[in-house]
């Protein structure tokens, strides 16, 4: 490995990190603003233009606050949990390609943290890891409400992880028919969604896999513990859930992890179903640097479309009861996902090999 290659890797990681932190600052502000608009309010408007620096102000405040440790806390796990929450959130986004590869000084730079050939499995593994943070935080706080939140997190995450994985399976199977063999690499999945059907429909997985998309959307909302599936932190029922006993910078890390998770999961939804960074770049008619940056803009636009759906759901839907959550996960989503896998694989088989009797 040359110095240039190593430098590019470091650059990519720093880029991903900066993108996520910047996106979180925007996301927290955007959520408050969107929810305020949906309730005929103004929302944050004091810090900076349109209140856009509100998150920075909040972050600074949290940074200077005392981090209280409960007397009955299991100190090691209690201190570990916030880091365990942030780490998977950032690692998930490392898999997501957020722009077209470009060449600089003879070196090809891919705009992606790392292009693993098992990218999707890595994503599933990391999103399962994120549950540990919640469970350990809840358990180690030595307090009853956090414990309830942690217990809720275990069952909820396992239920919806399954539906999310099955929705991904349908996408992977469909992607395999779109090119040469199956793949789990997100860069390859994006590349296979390039182009159009019939000249005007983008070749996104959204259209042939619409059922998988709906299941995936529901599952990622539950996976990131967002309303209406925020039973883990339901403040009306169990105070703050798993982060009740956390304060100061430790709480800020959970907060950061939640919003990074929203952005990462939305980015994955955009990558798997909305064609990732694919989009018209008008190469030749526009200046070269605009064409080079347009894929990233398409990617961010698609991601923020999904992020907006998160905010919209939060402003609209009341929280599910626990049995409703479970019955939706196990009795509706998982059977629906399994049925969809069968239906779509039969359809793909018929398209590839023809009807069995012909």
């Amino acid at each position, binding site marked *: 490995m040359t110095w240039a290659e190593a430098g590019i890797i470091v650059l990519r990681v720093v880029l991903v990190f900066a993108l996520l932190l910047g996106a979180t600052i925007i996301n927290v502000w955007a959520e408050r603003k*969107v929810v305020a*608009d949906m309730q005929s*309010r103004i929302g944050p408007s004091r810090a900076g233009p349109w209140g856009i620096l509100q998150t920075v102000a909040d972050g600074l405040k949290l940074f200077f606050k005392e981090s209280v440790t409960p007397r009955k806390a299991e100190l090691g796990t209690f201190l570990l949990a916030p880091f365990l929450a942030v780490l998977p959130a950032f690692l998930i986004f490392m898999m997501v390609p957020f722009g077209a590869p470009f060449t600089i000084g003879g070196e090809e730079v891919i705009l992606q943290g790392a292009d693993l050939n098992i990218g999707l499995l890595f994503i599933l593994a990391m999103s399962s890891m994120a549950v540990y943070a919640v469970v350990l935080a809840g358990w180690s706080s030595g307090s009853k409400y956090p414990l309830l939140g942690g217990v809720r997190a275990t069952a909820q995450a396992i239920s919806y992880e399954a539906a999310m994985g099955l929705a991904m399976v349908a996408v992977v199977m469909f992607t395999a028919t779109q090119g040469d063999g199956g793949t789990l690499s997100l860069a390859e999945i994006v590349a296979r969604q390039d182009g159009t059907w019939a000249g005007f429909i983008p070749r996104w997985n959204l259209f042939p896999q619409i059922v998988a998309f709906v299941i995936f959307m529901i599952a990622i909302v539950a996976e990131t513990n967002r309303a209406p599936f925020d039973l883990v932190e339901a403040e009306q029922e169990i105070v703050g859930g798993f982060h009740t006993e956390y304060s100061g910078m430790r709480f800020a890390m959970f907060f950061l992890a939640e919003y990074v998770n929203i952005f990462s999961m939305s980015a994955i939804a955009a990558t798997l179903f909305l064609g990732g960074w694919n989009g018209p770049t008008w190469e030749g008619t526009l200046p070269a640097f605009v064409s080079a940056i347009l894929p990233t803009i398409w990617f961010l636009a698609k991601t923020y479309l999904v992020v907006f759906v998160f905010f919209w759901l939060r402003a609209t839907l009341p929280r599910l009861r626990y049995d409703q959550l479970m019955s939706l996960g196990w009795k509706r989503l998982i059977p629906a996902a399994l049925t969809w896998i069968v239906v779509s694989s039969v359809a793909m088989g018929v398209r590839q090999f023809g009807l069995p009797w012909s």
Partner: protein
Amino acid sequence: MGVISDFLKGLGVTGGTMLRTITGREMVTTQYPKERRHKPQRFHGRHVLNRYPDGMEKCIGCELCAGACPADCIYVRGMDNDPHDPVSPGERYGYVYEINMLRCIFCGLCVEACPTEAITMTHLFEFSTTNREDAIYTRKELLMDAEGNVPHMFPDDPLIDTDELLTADGWVRATAPAGSASYEGVQMWQPTPGPASWDPEPSQDEIDARSEPSDG
């Protein structure tokens, strides 16, 4: 599927509200110090002790306001007028007059109880203080001066609107002194010699028509 159509209907409500808010057709927030809501005519704000047009104090130190006060926040002590230099037209005047604004519930019973319309309520409601002593208003803060200007505790406060101090409680004007709405259109009782110095009391309909409802 009822659930799905209900779900979409809910999204429609929030989405529609968002569009209306962004385009400025719907907004419940008032940017308070910059824009102020229209106050109703009968708003119960800070009290003021009035004077007659000739500069005499209206308060006769009868303590009926203190007796009527359900929160026991008014303290009055009367004193005999000096016959050669009277403070009020009556026999006595309010020598000490204190209202503890921390206890006051702004019910307006003192205003109703007052036989001479000496105490009325204004439209001013911004009078937070940083210590308890400042919240006890005395004659110094309550009594209007001979020109009819009402003192404010913090005259330099950029938030205060001194016009509000001159807007009296309309309801009291319409019903005092007997506490009956039949006094509408009748010239107010005025225990000073000579003709009354103000117009007859307007009816409630006239009051409503006059005060423009700026914010619905």
